[in-house]
C-alpha cells in the first residue's frame, strides 16, 4: 500500500440540462492507492460538503462493475484507462502522483447532461421497449429442457447478453451511435431458438427506434475498445444482416 500525492482533478460541473458547463479544479494532497476512483470522488464530496459547497453529482451504485450505473469520461476515455473495466472498478494505483485527471460526463447528443457528471440514458430503455424481449407471458412456458440449445450457441448468446447498458459505447463513438448496445441485445435474443419467432420484427423495430435517437455506425470500433464487458463488434454485423433481411423479403416468407 502506498500513497499518491498532489493530484489535480479537473471536473465538469453543470447546474442543469440547459446550464452553461465549466471545469472546476480540485487539489487532492494525498490519497491511498487502494482507493477506488469513485472513493476519491466520495472523499472530495465529503470535503466539499464540510466546506459548505455542493457535492459533485455522479451516477454510481453497485461498485463492482455489473449494474451499469456509473459512467464518466476519465482523461477522455469512457470508463477510464483500464481495459474491460467500468469506472467503479478503476483504482488509484492506475494513476501517478502529480497527475492531472480530467473527468467529464458521457458526451453524446442522445444523452443530455442532467447535472454535473450525470446524464440521461433513457433512450437505451426505449430501444429495449421497442423489441428487446421475447414475448413469453408468465405461465405458458414449456419445460426448460424441451428445446436443447447447443453449448456454443448458448455461450455466444451469453457473450452478447453480458452487456451492462452503461452507454460507454455511445460515449466513445465519434458519431454517438448505439449500434454496439442494440446489436448486443439483438444477438443475445436472435441467436437463441426461443428468439426466432420474433427475430426479424425485433431487428427492424429496435434498429429503427435506435435511429430515432442515435447517430449512425461507421465502423470506427471505438465502442468495442471502450466496452467494460468487451462485447464484440461482430454483433453489429449480425444486426445488420438481420435488419437487411427484415427489409429484403416479404416477412411472411422470412418467418417460415
Amino acid at each position, binding site marked *: *500500500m502506498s500513497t499518491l500525492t498532489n493530484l489535480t482533478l479537473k471536473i465538469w460541473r453543470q447546474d442543469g440540462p440547459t446550464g452553461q458547463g465549466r471545469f472546476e479544479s480540485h487539489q487532492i494532497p494525498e490519497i491511498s492507492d487502494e482507493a477506488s476512483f469513485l472513493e476519491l470522488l466520495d472523499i472530495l464530496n465529503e470535503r466539499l460538503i464540510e466546506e459548505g459547497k455542493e457535492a459533485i453529482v455522479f451516477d454510481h*451504485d453497485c*461498485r463492482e462493475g455489473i449494474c451499469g450505473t456509473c459512467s464518466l469520461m476519465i482523461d477522455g476515455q469512457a470508463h477510464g484507462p483500464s481495459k474491460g*473495466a467500468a469506472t467503479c472498478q478503476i483504482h488509484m494505483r492506475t494513476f501517478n502522483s502529480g497527475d492531472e485527471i480530467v473527468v467529464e460526463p458521457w458526451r453524446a447528443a442522445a444523452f443530455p447532461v442532467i447535472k454535473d457528471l450525470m446524464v440521461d440514458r433513457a433512450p437505451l*430503455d426505449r430501444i429495449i*421497449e421497442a423489441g428487446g*424481449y*421475447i414475448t413469453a407471458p408468465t405461465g405458458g412456458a414449456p419445460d426448460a429442457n424441451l428445446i436443447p440449445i447447443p*453449448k456454443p450457441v*448458448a455461450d455466444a448468446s451469453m457473450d452478447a447478453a453480458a452487456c451492462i447498458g452503461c452507454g460507454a459505447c455511445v460515449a466513445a463513438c465519434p458519431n454517438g451511435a448505439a449500434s454496439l448496445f442494440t446489436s448486443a441485445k439483438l444477438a443475445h435474443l436472435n441467436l437463441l431458438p426461443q428468439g426466432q419467432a420474433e427475430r426479424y420484427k425485433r431487428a427492424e423495430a429496435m434498429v429503427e427506434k435506435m435511429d430515432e435517437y442515435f447517430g449512425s455506425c461507421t465502423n470506427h470500433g471505438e465502442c468495442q475498445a471502450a466496452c467494460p464487458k468487451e462485447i464484440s463488434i461482430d454483433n453489429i454485423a449480425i444486426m445488420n444482416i438481420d435488419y437487411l433481411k427484415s427489409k429484403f423479403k416479404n416477412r411472411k416468407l422470412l418467418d417460415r
Partner: protein
Amino acid sequence: MTINLDSKIPDGPLADKWQNFIANEKLVNPANKRKFKIIVVGTGLAGASAAATLGELGYQVEAFTFHDSPRRAHSIAAQGGINAAKNYQGDGDSVHRLFYDTIKGGDFRAREANVHRLAEVSVDIIDQMVAQGVPFAREYGGLLDNRSFGGAQVSRTFYARGQTGQQLLIGAYQQLARQIGLGNVKLWNRMEMVDVVNIDGRCAGIVTRDLMTGEFSSHSAHAVVLATGGYGNVFYLSTNAMACNVTGAWRAHRRGAAFANPCYTQIHPTCIPQADDFQSKLTLMSESLRNDGRIWVPKNPDETRRADQVPEDERDYYLERIYPSFGNLAPRDVSSRAAKRMVDAGQGVGPLKNGVYLDFAEAIDRLGEDTIRERYGNLFDMYERITGENPYEVPMRIYPASHYTMGGLWVDYELMTTIPGLYCAGEANFSDHGANRLGASALMQGLSDGYFVLPYTISQYLSEWLNKPIPDTSHEQFAKVQAEATDRFKGYMAIGGTRGPDHFHRELGKIIWDYCGMDRNATGLEKALSEIPALHEEFKTDLKVTGSDTNVNQTLEKAGRVDDFFELGMLMCKDALNREESCGGHFRSEHQTDEGEALRNDDDFAYVSAWEWSGDMANPIEHKEQLEYEVVHFQTRSYK
C-alpha cells in the same frame, strides 16, 4: 392500526395448500382487471417480475424505481445461481427435498407453508426464464447444466457464468420493458417512494419524491406492492450497492406494517477485507472458491513474514482443525464466526490485520495453474483488480461482510403486510428464509414472489373492491402525508450542521457491526441501544446538506435514507436482545454449546417476532407469530 398476525395459511396437507389456495381464490375477470390500479415500488427481480406479470394480466400498473433504469437494481449483482427442484441431474431432488433443505438451512425459523410453495414454483421459474431467453449454462448436448451449492446434497443450481443475477434481472426487465412499450405499465424512473398513505384502514397509495426536481407527489392505487430490497447497508460497509436502503419498508412500518425478525442478517464469509477508513463498500468473492482454497492464519499474532514464507507448522488451518468433516466448506454463518474469532484474537493478516488467508498454493501444486485459472479465472482477475495482488502468487485475503437480510416486513401467505392492500415481495419481506438463507435461494424467492405468487394472491383482495370507489389523491390524507414528507426533507436542509450524511452512516455502521454483527451479547446490544439514540440526536443537530432541494441532490437523498437506518438499527438491536437464543445468522454468545456452536431454544423462541411501531424508536411493541411445524422436525445442525 391494529396488528393482526393472521398468516392465512390455506387448509389441507402441506403439499396441497398452494393448489387449494388457487382452486378457491377469488378472481377478477379479464374485463374488470383494467379497472384496478396497482403500484409496484422497486424494479429488482421481485418488482420487475410482478409489474410485468400484472401488466400482462391487464391491470393498470405503475412501476417506480429510484434508478435511471429498471435494469440497475441490485439483484443484478448476484453471482452464483438459482435453485430449482427440477431434478434434471437425476440425483434424487424433489420439491420436498428443496423445501426441507430450505427450512433446515433457515435453522427452523421459517413458515412451513410459504417455503413449500417456494419449492413448488421453483420449477416454473426456470421454464419461464428459459422461454424469455435467459442464456443459462448448458451441457454439450444442449440441456441445462447444474452445479451444487452449500446446504444441499444435490445439484439443483442453475447458473449463467458468474452473472446469474444479471441475466435473470435482464430477463425480468425485458418483460417489463415490453409491457411499458405496450402501454400496460407506466414507468416512473428516478422517483423515490418516501411514504405510504393509508385511508380507512387500507393502503391507498404512496408519496414520492422526484430525484430530478425535488418535487413531492401523491399516487393512489387499489393496491401497493413494495419490492424495495434488503437493509444490509445499515452496517454501512456491506456487499449491497451504494443506494440500497430500508426507506420503503421502514416508512411502511411507521405507518402500521409490522417488521419481522430484523435481527436475522446474513454475513457472507468470503469478501475482500476493508482496505482503509474511507472504503465505500465491500466486494463478495464467490463462495465456490472454498472448494479449492484453504483458509488459515499464522499461529503467531506478531507474524511479519510474507504468507509463502510462513512454514506449515506455524499456520493454523482453523476450519480444518475445528470442523474436520466439513473443513473449508463449513456453512456461511459458521465460517464467518470462526474468521472473526481469529481476527479478534489478533491473528488477522494484511496491512490492517483484518482478514484471513484463502490459499490456493496447494491446489495449484496439485492441479496446475491452468486448471485453477479455468475454474476461477474471472474471480482471480476481479480480486487482483481490487487489491493489486496476484492470487496465483500470494494467498487471497478474505473477511466476512454483511450480504443479505432475512428479516423484513411481516407478510401473510398472500404476501400482504399488516396493512390491507399493501404487499411486500422479495428481500424486503421476511417470508421464506427463516434465520439464514441458503446460497442461490434469493433469486428463487424474488422471482417466485413476483411471477408466481403475487399475481395469484392479489386478486383475492382486489375482487372485494370491484366497482367500489377508492379515494384519489385529492383526499386530505394524501395532502397531509405529502406535507409531512416535504417538511421532513426541508428539515434536513435546514439543520446547517457540520457533517455530511456519510459521516453519520459510517459511525452508525460501526456501532451496528460491533454490537449487532456476527457475534452478539446482551451487554453489547444494550450499549448499542444507548449509543444509537445519542448519535441520532447528533445527526439531527449536526447534519449538513449542501445544494438545493429543487434539483438533483444526492446528499439530501442520502440524508433521508440514513435517518431511517438509525431507527431500523434500534429495532435490530432490540430484536437481537430479545431473542435469547442463537439461530442461523443470529448468534448470541451467551447461547452456545460447549464447542462454541449456535444453541437454539425451540421451546421458547420458535416464533416470528413482528414489531409494531409505537411512535418511539426506543419502545417498539412486539407481537409473535408462533411457527407450527406439520411435517418437519426440529434438529440440531452439525458440521463437525
